[in-house]
């Protein structure tokens, strides 16, 4: 959901040319209404109740037998284990397409493959892509819907935030001195060492990194210019490293300092001893991903079961295991169902978190499109 691979852009070009020839929409609700008794088509079910309860939903999903997910990297928020656990628990085959794709790739794939059985059943999207495509989502309320705070869900359940985290600086403490503020990164010890996860005009994580730098330097989500200036300064000092950081570049020592979501930085610590994660107190930027069901899902029941699984205690704890903050985290902490050890191990964050709104993101994105390439080019 973060970045694109090389071929995808060209595929996207081809797809643009071919959308005119896309297969006509057909009614693919498999609608095996023989069971369940309620007679509701799986494709329009808005809760497990519509199937006649969880057991009926599980049965309907198992009848479909497959689930198509897209752009879920196995090393991102523990998705590898989440997919495996789901597949094993319900005996449903999970087809994971384009694990390194970007959010927009998910939407593109849904449009290009519409009507085929290879179309994605569920999405996990960045904020702007999600909010721009709500008409493609099927509203569905999981059993734990009420426990999710109002600001993290669409009232009808068209989308629900799934997990999130804070912008952070991850660094190899064996390579560089301790980081206590973003200004530290401008020092001579960090020459050619500071990488940002992607280009802020295309990738959500990198965009939030610039917002973080803006807030830390007197700007705000409404005014990201100071963030751009910060990266320009970083670049002029020769400290900015234009390499796309991945677990491989971190493990091989190519990218000793990475600006990225804290759950991604935290997961790196497993393989790099001495890898520390720092969330600047004066600039706490939060971001949540958006979970939704494709309205044209080829496996509508499996898609709904996937949602139930993700928002169950088990699914939420699996995300937590990947260092991400599950959306039901606080409710589960109160109820005592959260994995307390993992919950306490999350990087400490103090200060009021900033979550850029969609309007703020659009304004800032337009500004960055105009100026980013010149600042770091």
């Amino acid at each position, binding site marked *: *959901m*973060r*970045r*694109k691979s*090389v071929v*995808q*852009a*060209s595929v*996207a*070009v081809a797809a*643009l*040319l071919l959308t005119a020839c896309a297969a006509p929409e057909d009614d693919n609700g498999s609608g095996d209404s023989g069971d369940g008794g309620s007679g509701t088509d799986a494709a329009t079910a808005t809760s497990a109740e519509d199937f006649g309860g969880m057991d009926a939903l599980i049965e309907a999903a198992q009848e479909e037998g497959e689930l198509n997910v897209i752009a879920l990297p196995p090393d991102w928020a523990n998705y590898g284990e989440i997919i495996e656990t789901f597949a094993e628990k319900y005996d449903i085959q999970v087809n994971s397409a384009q694990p390194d794709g*970007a*959010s*927009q*790739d998910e939407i593109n794939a849904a449009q290009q493959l519409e009507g085929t059985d290879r179309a994605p059943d569920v999405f996990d*999207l*960045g904020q*702007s*892509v999600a909010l*721009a495509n709500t008409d493609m989502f099927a509203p569905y309320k999981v059993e734990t819907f009420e426990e999710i705070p109002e600001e993290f869900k669409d009232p009808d359940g068209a989308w629900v935030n799934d997990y999130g985290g804070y912008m952070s600086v991850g660094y190899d403490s064996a390579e560089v001195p301790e980081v206590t503020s973003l200004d530290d990164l401008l020092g001579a010890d960090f*020459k*050619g060492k500071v990488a*940002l996860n*992607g*280009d*802020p*005009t*295309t*990738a*959500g994580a990198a*965009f939030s990194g610039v917002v973080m730098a803006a807030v830390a330097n007197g700007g705000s989500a409404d005014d990201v210019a100071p963030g751009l200036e910060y990266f320009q300064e970083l670049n002029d000092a*020769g*400290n*900015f*490293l*234009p*390499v*796309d950081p991945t677990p491989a*570049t971190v493990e*091989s*020592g*190519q990218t000793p300092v990475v600006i990225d979501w804290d759950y991604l930085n935290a997961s790196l610590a497993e393989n790099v001893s001495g890898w520390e994660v720092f969330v600047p107190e004066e600039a706490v930027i939060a971001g949540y991903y958006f979970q939704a069901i494709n309205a044209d899902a080829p496996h509508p029941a499996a898609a709904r079961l996937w949602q139930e699984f993700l928002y169950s205690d088990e699914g939420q704890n699996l995300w937590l295991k990947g260092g991400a903050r599950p959306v039901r985290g606080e409710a589960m902490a109160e109820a005592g169902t959260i994995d307390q050890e993992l919950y306490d191990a999350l990087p400490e964050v103090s200060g009021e978190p900033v979550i850029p709104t969609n309007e703020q*993101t*659009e304004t800032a*994105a*337009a500004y*960055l*499109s*105009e*100026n*980013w*390439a*010149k600042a*770091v*080019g």
Partner: protein
Amino acid sequence: MPSLGLLPFLGYLTVFLIVPTITVIVGAFQVDGRFSLVNIKTLFGSTAMHALSNSMLLSAATAVIGAVLGALLCYLVVNAPPTSLFRRAVLSISGVLAQFGGVTLAFAFIATLGFSGVLTELLRSTLNVDVFGSGWLFGLPGLILVYTYFQIPLMVIVFLPALEGLKPQWREAALSIGATPRQYWLQVAIPLLRPAFLGATLLLFANSFAAYATAAALVSQGQPITVLLIRAALTSEIVLGRADLAFALALEMIVVVAVVMVAYALLLRRTSRWLR
């Protein structure tokens, strides 16, 4: 009807060249399906112009470097006996390397000159020199170096026939009426070769201007050149709905390449007069 045999080719052209070109042109003048000049205006904005000038700089630099070094290599090849190992090796290597590009080429350079590349490590341990710096390989300077790798062999392939077309009789004629070798080169050979040389340079320019996969694999930050700006317009998860802008950028590239190819055709026509 021998022209019937052309039909498959024409069909192929229609599907893979004519239809896409028309789609791009139509798309460039639309926003959400309606006629609009907004995208064309965006092309003249600072971001698109910055990318275009970088693309031109990259193409011009690699075309000139490729042309000069490639021509020198051609000269050495022409003066070697036709059966020599050197000549055969250069020709076959050029044939292969001129087509070497994309992810493999980018990876080859990352493995050699990247942070923990073979050459980087060697220079670091023996001479204590850091060639990696702040990652210049992943920006415009890196692209120039990497593109040159396929530009030089391409120059050898396209320029060699022109150099071989220089008849030895011309040289003998010049020398027999008292010209010095220097005069022969300046007044006979170079004027004869100039159109072919410039034509080949233009071809190299167009070749690197349109190259995508190598840049896409190497550069992830800043989208410095036009092809990467097209990628960003199509896949960005931050700025949405810019597929129309991608069409406009593609149109801009078509125009540039068309101008270059017309110039190339004109020069080729001049060259062929001499090579008959």
